[in-house]
């Protein structure tokens, strides 16, 4: 068993060594969520660290006990106590259930608080007014449209620092997921829905963004750069784009939406009016507007409940219908919010 511990340390040490090698080798490596540059990402990292420490409360004693017992009660050791019939102890079992319950309870409360606090559709508190950027996932590129500035970009997004950014997300292709690790967690981009993600950068800088969900052959090429600058630089950049870039026409959009990879960033001085809404509505389900769909989905949830009455073991199917309903309603209210904007 002595050997075992030694091997294990070696095993754990190797990746650690690799990490040290890697981090010393190149100083400007992007550490992703470990190096948060935005208020959301910072809170998420804090939460991760707190939860990890709470988990260690159980992890460490378990590991210690495993090795100590394995060593102490090995058969070769003749003088160790041996109690072959000892298999129950009320006290120990109470602790055994109690400690994990308490730890999970604490984590659950934390989760509940943070989930509401960090709900991505909730606007961020700030003195500055939020800027809205519409994001469309295409095969295999990102289109950003700025409804207030009237410009559009591809595979590149720029916004001012210390200003909340309200991303509205949709897709005109199989679903993807919009993720800028250093600014905050990801949210899916799904066709027929406008999802919301609120982020804010604390520092100017270029942050790598990703398409995090597999969406076909070249999804790996869906990286983009999110650049935070000062308000003046941002305004100047918008002016530049308006002056020097071509316009994005509807036809131009249709071509852009076809499958293919764009390796460069592109900017457009304008884009067709209501483009984002049209993309969302193109796939909206149901007979009429989003609102009707929402209420009909709620009806169907009830219908499912009645249908399952009296059948055995179908509880999870009921909740499925509800789950779907919730999702549909959430997306519908999103659409509505969007229409009010």
């Amino acid at each position, binding site marked *: 068993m002595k050997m075992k511990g030694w091997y294990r340390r070696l*095993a754990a040490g190797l990746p650690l060594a690799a990490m040290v090698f890697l981090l010393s080798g190149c100083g400007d490596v992007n550490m992703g969520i470990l190096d948060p540059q935005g208020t959301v990402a910072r809170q998420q990292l804090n939460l991760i660290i707190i939860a990890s420490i709470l988990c260690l409360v159980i992890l460490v004693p378990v590991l210690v006990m495993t090795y100590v017992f394995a060593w102490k009660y090995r058969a070769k050791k003749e003088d160790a106590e041996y109690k072959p019939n000892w298999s129950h102890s009320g006290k120990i079992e109470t602790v055994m259930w109690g400690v994990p319950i308490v730890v999970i309870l604490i984590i659950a409360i934390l989760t509940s608080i943070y989930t509401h606090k960090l709900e991505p559709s909730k606007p961020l508190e700030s003195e500055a007014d939020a800027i809205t950027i519409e994001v469309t996932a295409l095969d295999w590129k990102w289109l950003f449209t700025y409804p207030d500035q009237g410009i559009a970009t591809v595979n590149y997004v720029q916004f001012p620092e210390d200003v909340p950014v309200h991303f509205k997300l949709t897709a005109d292709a*199989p679903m993807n997921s919009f993720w800028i690790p250093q600014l905050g967690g990801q949210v899916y981009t799904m066709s027929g829905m406008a999802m919301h993600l609120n982020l804010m950068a604390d520092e100017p800088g270029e942050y790598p963004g990703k398409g995090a969900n597999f969406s076909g052959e070249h999804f790996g090429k869906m990286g983009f750069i999110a650049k935070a600058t000062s308000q003046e630089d941002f305004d100047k950049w918008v002016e530049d784009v308006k002056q020097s870039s071509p316009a994005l026409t509807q036809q131009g959009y249709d071509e852009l939406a076809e499958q293919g990879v764009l390796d460069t960033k592109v900017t457009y001085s304008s884009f067709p009016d209501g483009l984002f809404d049209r993309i969302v509505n193109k796939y909206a389900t149901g007979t009429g507007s989003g609102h009707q769909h929402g209420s009909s989905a709620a009806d169907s949830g009830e219908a499912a409940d009645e249908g399952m009455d009296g059948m055995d073991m179908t509880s999870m199917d009921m909740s499925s219908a509800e789950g779907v309903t919730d999702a549909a309603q959430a997306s519908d209210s999103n659409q509505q919010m969007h229409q009010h904007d």
Partner: protein
Amino acid sequence: MWDKIKDFSSDFFVTGDPMIYGADVAIVLVSVAILFVLTYFKKWGWLWREWLTTVDHKKIGIMYILASLLMLFRGGMDALLMRAQLAAPDLEFLKPEHYNEIFTTHGVIMILFMAMPLMFGLFNIAVPLQIGARDVAFPVLNSVSFWLFFAGAMLFNLSFVIGGSPNGGWLAYPPLTEKMFSPGVGQDFYIWGIQISGIGSLATGINFIITILKMRAPGMKLMKMPMFSWSVLASCLTIILAFPILTVTLALLFIDRFAGAHFFTLDGGGNPMMYINLIWMWGHPEVYIVILPAFGIFSEVVATFSKKRLFGYKSMVFALMSISIVSFFTWAHHFFTMGSGADVNVFFAISTMIIAIPTGVKVFNWILTMYKGKITFKQPMLWTMGFIPCFVVGGMTGVLLSIAPADFQFHNSYFLIAHFHQVLIGGVVFGYFAGLYYWWPKMFGFSLDEKLGRWVFWLWNIGFYVCFMPQYLVGLMGMTRRYSTYGWDTGWFGLNLTSTIGAFLMGAGFLVQVWQILYSIKNMQKLKDTTGDPWDGRTLEWTIQSPAPFYNFATDPVVSETDDFWEEKQRIAAGGKPRPKPALAPIHMPKNSGMPVVMAGFFFFAGFGFVFDWMWMAIPGLIGVAASMLVHSFRYDTDFYIPVDEVRRTELAAGREV
């Protein structure tokens, strides 16, 4: 005409890749070799009588295990190819479309065609023996299950050389997997391969529930049942509740693709989110289906090799059952990031964390079973010792993932990949290996070489940590799963290279394992288990000779305690008299049946037809399936009796008193 044939075959066969031509050649050569050997040694009759038509649960178990090791090889090759591609930035060893196929088949094969059959193999080997039964409740259905799994697995693997592999990820989310975005036949291979074997899994679930509930030896109350059998019961209950959902989900996806329906399409009112809900309502319970029996195995192994009663039996049973129930209420944690809203997320986050409680309790139980025991570190125990730290760390990262707001950062990243490999390799694979080494002597009559076994263990273990620990970090650095390559500027090179080295260490572990099996077969006489009880076991399977005779127990065993065999041995050691054995009586056994293999053949035929939309093939296939069942229904002469003489002869030949 010639051109037509050429056109057809260039679509039909996968072309253009040297690796695939290599596979083509290998498949043809191996098939020819097998046919030749079988014919030359006149083994066709033997194969048919002894294996293809067998309803003996032990032989079916062996076939499951063989097939799953084969699939482990295939899935492992996929893994090594992926790791080779990711070893350095900007490699072009695999093109994206090829890489996408490989991660898809890797996932499907490892979960559905490796873990599931290995698990069913161990069910088959151990459960009837453990509860003192002569066979499972429905022996022919058991054979049907195996052959359906086999047909499904072969159909799925065929896509490698015919038609093209699926490339939509292991759970095949639409709309990507709809005809509009995946027009090829790969996705249909996926649907039919899983569908056919899934029906088999469902049948196995029912079969083992009835076996455990109704066929236990007299005196074995449920609360005296060995823990592995409990875990099988929990797993099978989960199977019968979860697998119908999979059947429907895949059927709907197929109807979408085949008949242009709009369940999950972007247009026509379809709802892709519904697929994601449905597939995870099966998919999440599925991971508990495969892990629960591993928990059962560890419980047996820890008690046996600590020579001590399992600590907290009742807690353990309660934990198993509560895990299998709660597992149905966690599915939405796979898409916290899809905008369900904070309240829904909180519900599913907490339901997920709750599972950590009974799981944690089980770990405490195992550790306390070792406490004040007499522990020997034979191979099964070694794997258990590898499992506990690995699984506890994996469980901890699982709790981190369940925290919804943190999951927004972990989701789809390599952190997630590292987590589920840690619980699936560290938990499921290590668990099944422990089971395999534990019951191997009962299956074949000899144990596997210890010295080579230690090599296998350390290669797998070290390989595992070297492979997956860097993946946690690279995930935190923002590396997304399913990337076929990455740039130098990302800074992910060192970690990925390390990870690749670890993967190849595990590959080496598998090779040594194969060598270990071959070596042990060669030295079978030296490693022979003459006692039938090589580990000083506790449960009924160790009361009979190794390998178990085809009727299992010469006389029906009677049980009065938990771990009855151990208690009996203690009593005898203390000077008590052995329990009197009842006189031999003729043993009632089921007859072999050719129906299952024929029916699975028709199913394969039908599935292949549906993949290519060839109704002339699919419809006769389905008719064949129905006809097989009808023919079976008309068969009344299904069982026979083994005369006392023969039982006596077999027992004496194995050196047993009668």
